[in-house]
């Protein structure tokens, strides 16, 4: 388990009303900027109001685990952080920087200006994302998958990129499969390569969206093992998962979402002592 320097470890139940001021902020020691700070985040798809005022603070070097039933908006929240979706309301700061927009002075008035594609791509470099369905590039080998972004986005010279890619592959235990194509690998191996691919861009924060949900049960362990080692190495992570054991052991902060709001959040001990009936109910189904 990681040390929990900046997180409150008290159990905190929050009100369930939509759009309420809800989640109490983690006490922030002034010297550190949160890795991710979401403030009253709303997201609607057309008339479907999916996120209804999410507040969340993730401190550098900590692991936040998001739990919640299917359809509660967990993926949507991660995708907002990575700008795969655009915000409808509220704001998200990554590493102290507002994402997706910038404040401009427009005729003496402070207005929000949407960032252009290049600026968004730059902000994304701080974030690595791992998907439920791996999404490796099937037409490229394992090594080429990991080198793709460093070479073509970060413009790292090929030889150096290869060396670093091999290091990342070693880290996830896939170095001996460097010349294989993704389809020649098991799901667990593919997901480990996907983690290496995300790490190769040296992101400050890693986002995991149900990284083990598409895996056969016997392959879950190897992926969780890699994630645990990343947590131990102090990488900031936000993990959406149904693996309660992993949440309890590795999570510094547990967030339970349901119906587009944060219902309960706190340290890992809230898993064993849930306060909110909805969280209790959820845990009784997954445990």
């Amino acid at each position, binding site marked *: 388990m990681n040390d929990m320097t900046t997180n409150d470890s008290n159990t905190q139940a929050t009100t369930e009303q939509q759009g309420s001021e809800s989640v109490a902020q983690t006490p922030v020691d002034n010297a550190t900027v949160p890795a991710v700070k979401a403030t009253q985040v709303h997201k609607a798809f057309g008339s479907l109001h999916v996120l209804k005022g999410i507040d969340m603070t993730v401190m550098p070097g900590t692991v936040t685990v998001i739990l919640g039933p299917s359809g509660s908006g967990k993926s949507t929240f991660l995708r907002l952080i*990575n700008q*795969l979706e655009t915000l409808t309301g509220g704001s998200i700061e990554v590493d102290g920087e507002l994402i997706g927009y910038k404040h401009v002075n427009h005729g003496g008035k402070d207005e929000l200006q949407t960032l252009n*594609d*290049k600026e968004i*791509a*730059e902000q*994304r*470099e701080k*974030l*690595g*994302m791992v*998907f439920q*369905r791996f*999404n*490796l*590039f*099937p*037409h*490229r*080998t394992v090594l080429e998958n990991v080198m*793709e*972004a460093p070479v*073509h*986005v*970060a413009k790292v010279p090929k030889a150096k990129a290869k060396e670093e890619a091999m290091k990342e592959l070693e880290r996830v235990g896939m170095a001996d*499969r460097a*010349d*294989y*194509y*993704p*389809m*020649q690998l098991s799901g667990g191996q593919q997901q480990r390569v*996907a983690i290496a*691919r*995300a790490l190769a*861009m040296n992101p400050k924060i890693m986002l995991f969206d149900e990284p083990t949900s598409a895996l056969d049960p016997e392959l879950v362990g190897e992926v969780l093992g890699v994630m645990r080692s990343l947590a131990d190495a102090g990488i900031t992570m936000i993990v959406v998962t149904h693996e309660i054991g992993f949440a309890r052991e590795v999570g510094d902060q547990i967030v339970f979402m349901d119906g587009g709001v944060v219902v309960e959040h706190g340290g890992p001990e809230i898993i064993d002592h849930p306060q909110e009936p909805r969280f209790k109910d959820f845990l009784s189904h997954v445990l």
Partner: protein
Amino acid sequence: MGHKNESDGLDIPNRIHARPVFRPGSLIAGVIVAFLAVMLGYGMITNDNFDWPIVWKYLFNEHVLNGIGWTLVLTVTSMLIAIVLAVLLAVMRKSVNPVLRGVSWFWIWFFRGTPIYTQLVFWGLFSVLIPTISLGIPFTHLNFWSMSTEQLNKFISPGFLAAMLGLALNESAYLAEIVRAGLEAVDPGQSEAAEALGMPRTMIMRRVVLPQAMRIIVPPTGNEVISMLKTTSLVSAVPFSLEIQFATNAIANRIYKPIPLLMVACFWYLVITSILMVAQSWIERYFGKGFNEGSNGPAAGDGDAKEEKPAAKVAEGNEGGTAFLGLNA
């Protein structure tokens, strides 16, 4: 068939060597079809109307060989232009810009909706319709460059430009739909993963989506190439009079022997089609990288191992099938 598998080199002590099922129906059908085929072949060889000596005489005739050259040049150039246009059209079709979407839609609607023969006649009249091509700013007298279309046409060969453009523009409309289907078949998760890695939109298209779409685009495009090869025989509508169909027809009219010269044309079309089919299977193998390999063993070039992998087999079967469909086009 147990004994054949022994070439697999595996030591299987209880390997099965069973007799195959006896299928009298398939045996009888085979005999009948073989008999009919032999009869047809015999009939063709002995029938004087085919005039085989004349076929031989003109098979490598200078005008005929020239005609093949022009047919190939027309096929290749118009196909290349069509492919470039088609990718543009398909990307425009998916653009966020409504003007680009609209233009692409209209283009496909127009060129698919009118007969190729009509279009070729139209392009033949191009130099009458538009005597000079110029590059300038509309509604002003600014003019950077201009050229008479007549002059341009003579520069290459009469009718060639019109024939090439006519074929290319028509084909681009069909190919655009093929390319669009290919782009849409690529898992959206691929673009998302690339976006999450910070790749810009054009790079995602070029390095992630298009290469995967190619796997789906190539087989029907092979059909289109073969179809184009034969459509070139319509350019007499322009008129362009150097390609093989026109060349053999001219000889036939001169010596009053239409059938042997049709055989000459058929022979050459078949030769070129066969070469194209081989080329297509190479291209398919190239873009099948990562999909055709089996579930074990590294990717790095073991060509022999690939042969026995089921995925590779499926791809090959496909190619044969589509190529023959193409012959009917």
